[in-house]
């Protein structure tokens, strides 16, 4: 049998654990970030090791190969510069026409690059931590994406780190639109498949919608969290639900969520 002092010790611990579970969401988030701050030295160490490896790899690349890459990048930069100037003209025209019609003006996305420092160790959530925080201008609900498409949104913000909830997590539902026909649905987690397969369900499509495999899906802009037009993926298959009243499609994500190393955060 346990001694009386041991029993009291255990009871205190159980009460403490239960009290932690009952903390309000915001306090718990701050407390969590404070506890996970204990891992900062290890995150810093792995970051430095990563950079050192990168430098060593660069040192091993032959000069001729580097010169070839520089030439290629210079060509790409010139092409991008040309596209950018065309883009600026289109933006100006768009803003002028919107002002004429009285529509609200569109703003450009402000993006910040962040490094992924850890992933959720639990198997039932899809989240990751990035090395940007409130100090860098991040706020809760900032969209997170890559050049390929949407990744998720910021869930909790610390001073130097933030927690991102990814597509496929039950805590994240995104209003999405099928690009070809404007059909709007909601993206849900697909729990029957592992995350690395990159499948997600697009639900609440109307029963008579003309959704077909191969069509692309992007954010609809409804809900106020994600702006319209962030690519999400392509439809793989469609099936009818609720005796034909609605349809559900499976979407293959354009981002490989299992192999993310850097992401971009959209700053308000």
């Amino acid at each position: 049998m346990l001694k009386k002092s041991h029993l009291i010790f255990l009871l205190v611990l159980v009460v403490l654990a239960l009290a932690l579970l009952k903390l309000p969401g915001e306090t718990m988030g701050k407390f969590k970030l404070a506890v996970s701050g204990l891992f900062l030295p290890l995150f810093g160490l792995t970051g430095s090791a990563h950079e050192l490896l990168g430098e060593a790899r660069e040192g091993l690349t032959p000069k001729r190969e580097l010169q070839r890459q520089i030439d290629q990048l210079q060509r790409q930069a010139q092409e991008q510069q040309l596209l950018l100037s065309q883009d600026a003209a289109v933006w100006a025209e768009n803003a002028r026409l919107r002002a004429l019609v009285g529509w609200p003006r569109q703003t450009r996305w402000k993006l910040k690059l962040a490094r992924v420092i850890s992933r959720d160790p639990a198997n039932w959530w899809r989240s990751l931590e990035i090395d940007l925080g409130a100090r860098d201008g991040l706020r809760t609900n900032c969209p997170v994406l890559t050049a390929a498409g949407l990744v998720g949104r910021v869930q909790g913000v610390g001073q130097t780190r933030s927690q991102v909830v990814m597509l496929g997590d039950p805590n994240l539902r995104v209003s999405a639109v099928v690009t070809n026909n404007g059909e709007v649905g909601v993206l849900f987690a697909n729990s029957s498949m592992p995350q690395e397969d990159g499948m997600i369900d697009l639900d609440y499509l109307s029963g008579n919608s003309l959704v077909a495999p191969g069509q692309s899906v992007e954010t609809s802009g409804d809900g106020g969290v994600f702006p319209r037009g962030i690519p999400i993926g392509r439809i793989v298959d469609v099936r009818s639900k609720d005796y034909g009243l609605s349809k559900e499609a499976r979407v293959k994500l354009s981002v490989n969520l299992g192999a993310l190393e850097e992401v971009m955060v959209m700053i308000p």
Partner: protein
Amino acid sequence: MNWLPTLLILAVAYLAVFLEGWCGLLRYCLGAQIDLLPALMVYASLTNGLASIVLLAFCGGLWFDSLSLNPLGVSVLPLLVTGLLIYHSRELLLRRSVFAQVVLGMMAGAAQPLGTLFLLLNLGRLPLLGWFSLWQWIVLAAGGGALTPLCFQLFDRLHDALAYQPVTPPAFRADREIKRGRL
């Protein structure tokens, strides 16, 4: 009380939680991330005192939850219950038998996620559950079984390297000393 074993267990738990968050290789290959904390708990409850069990449950659980979307503290109670159950019956267990270690590791690896899920569902959270979760659960149980004997080996070596070795009595016996002198 000798705090070295407890500190070693906590240090390994800290590194284990960090590795679980940082290294995604197993998750990529198996579709599930293996948890080292149940295996550590089996070791702590079979070889250490109540303080080690409580500290491992509290610190390990908090560290794990801080890197996860789990509510903070939800992993503490299942770890503590697992540890206490093993601690309660440890006099009946063949703690040095590898088979016993594997079986206990598997049981702990299977019980820990079930306990956490039970608490999560009771707290009104909706984790990602489906048929694939069954595979993840099997991987977690098998991982617990495989890692527990490794934990025993690791800590035995650490203990040999860091702890004071027991003083062995010298071979000298006064009653068997050959007394030489003049005949």
